[in-house]
């Protein structure tokens, strides 16, 4: 039972980490507080639902279409909104992105209404049995995609010129700009990438969870919790803290009450902010 839930937690947590990495990138590199991240996840889930219903596409395959869409969406959001508040005080950033959150939530409410939506079916609706352990295929696939994304991202950030420039930007904006980094383009690329990855997470989440307009708030707080625990610097920290939250989630659902998942996660989040404001894995 305990091992089973640890396995569930790891599977779930790596998907949470995938949902949070975009936020971590935007927060770390662009230095932007994005309250609307969870609502982008919600939007991605709805897009996966839409593609699943209209094109009869399996949700796990929807990112093939939705990733480019969200990449462009990230660029557009950067150019229209984020661009204006990058140098603004935190309060303005919070206010504007809260506005964006409300906008996205009500857009979803107007288009898809308040009833939860879930996809008709997925080819991954079966489970593997590993001795006494039960491993759902949808979550296993999700974890594999997530880990592949993290490896790709890690290589991108450490091996390519653009990736190194991104990390430089995260460390010291002014020096990076003086060294000839094109801050504006790089910021746009980071936002595009960060929100593009959300499409991936949305497709995976849609294989096993329904979505409604309030999902955004839940995932928004969840991804911020993951980022708070990870601290800034390095993608592996995000993966690890995602897994920790995943395990906390699975244990609460199994031993207390499935509805109490948010309670454990957010209390953990608040305690973390009190006692380890730099995060567990952060450099600063």
């Amino acid at each position, binding site marked *: 039972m305990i091992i089973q839930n640890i396995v569930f937690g790891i599977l779930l947590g790596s998907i949470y980490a995938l949902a949070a990495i975009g936020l971590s990138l935007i927060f770390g590199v662009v230095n932007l*507080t994005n*309250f609307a991240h969870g609502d982008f996840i919600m939007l991605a889930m709805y897009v996966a639902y839409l593609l699943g219903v209209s094109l009869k596409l399996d949700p796990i395959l929807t990112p093939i279409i939705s990733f480019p869409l969200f990449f462009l969406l990230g660029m557009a959001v950067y150019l229209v*909104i984020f661009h*204006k*508040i990058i140098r603004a005080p*935190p*309060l*303005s*950033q*919070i*206010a*504007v992105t*809260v*506005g*964006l*959150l*409300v*906008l996205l*939530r*009500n*857009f979803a*409410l*107007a288009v898809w*209404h*308040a009833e939860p939506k879930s996809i008709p079916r997925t080819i991954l609706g079966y489970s593997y049995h590993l001795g006494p352990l039960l491993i759902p295929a949808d979550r296993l696939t999700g974890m594999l995609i997530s880990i592949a994304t993290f490896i790709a991202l890690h290589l991108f950030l450490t091996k390519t010129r653009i990736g190194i420039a991104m990390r430089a930007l995260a460390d010291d904006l002014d020096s990076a700009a003086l060294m000839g980094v094109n801050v504006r383009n790089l910021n746009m690329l980071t936002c595009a990438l960060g929100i593009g990855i959300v499409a991936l997470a949305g497709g995976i989440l849609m294989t096993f969870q329904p979505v409604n307009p309030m999902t955004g*708030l*839940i995932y928004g*707080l969840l991804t*911020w919790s993951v980022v*708070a625990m990870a601290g800034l610097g390095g993608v592996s920290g995000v993966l690890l803290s995602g897994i920790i939250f995943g395990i906390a989630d699975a244990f609460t659902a199994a031993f207390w*009450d499935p*509805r*109490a998942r*948010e*309670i454990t996660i*957010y*209390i953990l*989040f*608040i305690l973390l*902010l*009190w*006692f380890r*404001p730099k995060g567990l894995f952060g450099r600063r």
Partner: protein
Amino acid sequence: MDRRLVLAPLISLGVLSLVPLLLGFNNYYLLLASLILLYTTMVSAWNIIGGFAGQVDLAAGAYHGIGIFVTGLLFIFYRVTPLVGIFLGGGVAALLALAIGYPTFRFGLREVWYALSSLALVVILYKLFLIWENVGGTIERYLPKVGFSWFYLTFPGNYLYYYFMSALLLVATIAINIRVRYSKLGYYLLAIRENEEAAEMLGIDVRRYKLYALMIYSFIVGLTGGIFVLMLGYVHPVLFDSWISIQTAILGIVGGLGSIAGGPIIAVVLLAVAEYLRVKFGGYIPGLHQILFAIILMVIVLFKPGGIGEWLDTLWRRLTVGRRVEEVA
């Protein structure tokens, strides 16, 4: 300062008393007007923590819900009169704020982290009351039917009384705003908002004064919950509503941080418009009024960060300076 303290509340009470007359004592309009005044009260209270102290607090939904549950459950379980229950609700909300706020400020949570943890509090309490079947649970608990009673503050089918309760609370909150603004506490809070390190360096006990601001705010928001539950007639965990938090902060920011008049004025106007939109288009575009709020918030913050309050100040100065020039001439 003392003149303002007496004058401003009296004027607002006078204006507010005329509203039922204009509405022709129509019960439905009075209900809407009472709700608008309650939400406006929250905005005015938010001004103390958000406007003066500069902390983007998103826990209004939590304190409001605590007020609802304490007042409602004391009435349902023990027949405690809401005359007492409302204030107990405010007190419990303030105690909760103290319990959460003390470590929050002690460990220096600020800006985005403060906003996030306060928003998380709303969701935590919602889920907690949903699971805690003895007091919350998924089924509504109705207030006892006692008929028309001053003692239980129950006036079935007549919202005029609730309207005046809300109006009084709003006026009192505005008076508290003015009192705080021109006191030592107010100046300290403004200093903290502008530069917390500098304020601390000058010997202000930053934590203590932020905590005072938080407790005043949460107490008032708790009171609004108590009045709200009397109008609503039942308690349910869904009343821990994150939208109330967000709405309060949006209106506070649009009204202008630290502006005593800006928040309430813009709140009354926008909430009235929102209510109209909800009635007119709510059927097919359910969230239209929220979309309106979001757009106004983004436009104001991007293009006029001072909010409506700044504009009001300029207007006021022009009017008064103009008068003074005339006197001299």
